[in-house]
């Protein structure tokens, strides 16, 4: 088991990443809190040795995405929608960047991870494939389609859709 210092350091270092991934997958704050507890408890109890900061970061991303998927797969959750869920999610988005974030959240779930990992975390398609356990060509396809959908929603002005050398 890891020490308290290690846990606190990981929370300070990766809490924002976990929070962002929760934001693109989950629709209410209670679920976000659940995911925080699940992910960091897993870290504390895990015996994985990280070779680098990048390795540790990738571990947190993968574990968070899997935890979110597990939560959403829950039988009860998949058949019920809390009445205030959408309102809560919309209210949580910062006003300054509402347009971009709403466009990302409006994408089908399978596109959101690749968009976040590519456009924000700057991972390449092979790296995304490794993190998500998907074929590289699948990642390319998801990126191309998500780019088209985002273009339709946001238009081309002011956005660099191609990330040179990454995809």
């Amino acid at each position, binding site marked *: *088991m890891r*020490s308290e210092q290690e846990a606190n350091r990981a929370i300070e270092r990766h809490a924002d990443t976990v929070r962002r991934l929760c934001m693109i997958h989950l629709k209410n704050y209670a679920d976000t809190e659940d995911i925080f507890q699940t992910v960091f408890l897993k870290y504390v109890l895990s015996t994985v040795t990280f070779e680098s900061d990048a390795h540790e970061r990738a571990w947190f991303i993968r574990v968070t995405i899997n935890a979110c998927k597990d939560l959403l797969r829950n039988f009860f959750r998949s058949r019920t929608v809390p009445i205030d869920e959408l309102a809560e999610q919309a209210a949580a988005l910062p006003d300054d960047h509402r347009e971009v974030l709403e466009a990302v959240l409006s994408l089908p779930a399978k596109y959101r991870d690749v968009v976040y990992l590519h456009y924000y975390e700057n991972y390449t398609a092979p790296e995304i494939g490794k993190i998500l356990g998907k074929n590289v060509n699948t990642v390319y396809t998801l990126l191309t389609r998500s780019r088209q959908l985002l273009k339709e929603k946001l238009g081309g002005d002011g956005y660099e859709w191609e*990330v040179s050398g990454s995809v």
Partner: protein
Amino acid sequence: MNGKFQEAFDSIHAEEALKARTKAFLEQKTNGYRPKKALPYYRLAPVMACFLFVLAGFWGYQLYFTQTSVISIDINPSVELGVNRFDRVVSAKAYNDDGEELLGSVEVNFKEYTQALDEILNSDIITDCLSRDEILSIAVVGSDETQSGRILSDVQACTAGQKNAFCYLASPEEMEEAHELGLSYGKYRAYLAMQEIDPDITPEEVQQMTMREIRDLLAASGDPDILQQFPGMQDGTSGQGGPGGQGPGQGPGWHGGKRKQQSAG
């Protein structure tokens, strides 16, 4: 780098309250980040004691209820008593309707086999049969020769007053064959002998016949070899093999399937 995406996601932060609650949760879940102590031995003692108790119970049950010898009694009621290593009757099985009736009239389970035999031999059904000059055949079968020999001596002592009682040792293999045909041991031997004079005879028919009827049929055949296969018929004339049949020291009459009849009493 897409600046707008970067700015948009950069604006999302984990709230300090959320971090604090997560830290508190981890503290609580890990019991203050203290690794779990191994359960001390004294806490395991009751569990081990329960385990040993169950194990001892199971072992005792096996030991008590495993039959080490069988006493097969045939007259017409055909019954077999399973005897454990402590000389107690742990099973009583009837091989025909008369046997059912006999076991219904006596209580032999968990009694010492000598007591059980006394009860059976003194029951109305058996005394009635013996008074009609029926033949009583008692075979002792067991893998433990010492116990089988001892049981045979006791059986002989129990039947000492009966002129038509024949006691002998038999082999477990023959007993198995008998059970495969649904017969008690005495009736099985009788069935084998009867087959020589009537190959079409079935085990069911033999099962319902009295030992006296069988012996009379064998005697009527007049074949001395066949007669040798039935207790008390070694001289081919009479059924007087008793009292008590042969002793263990003299060797079993039918032991090992050799159909060797020795002088009884």
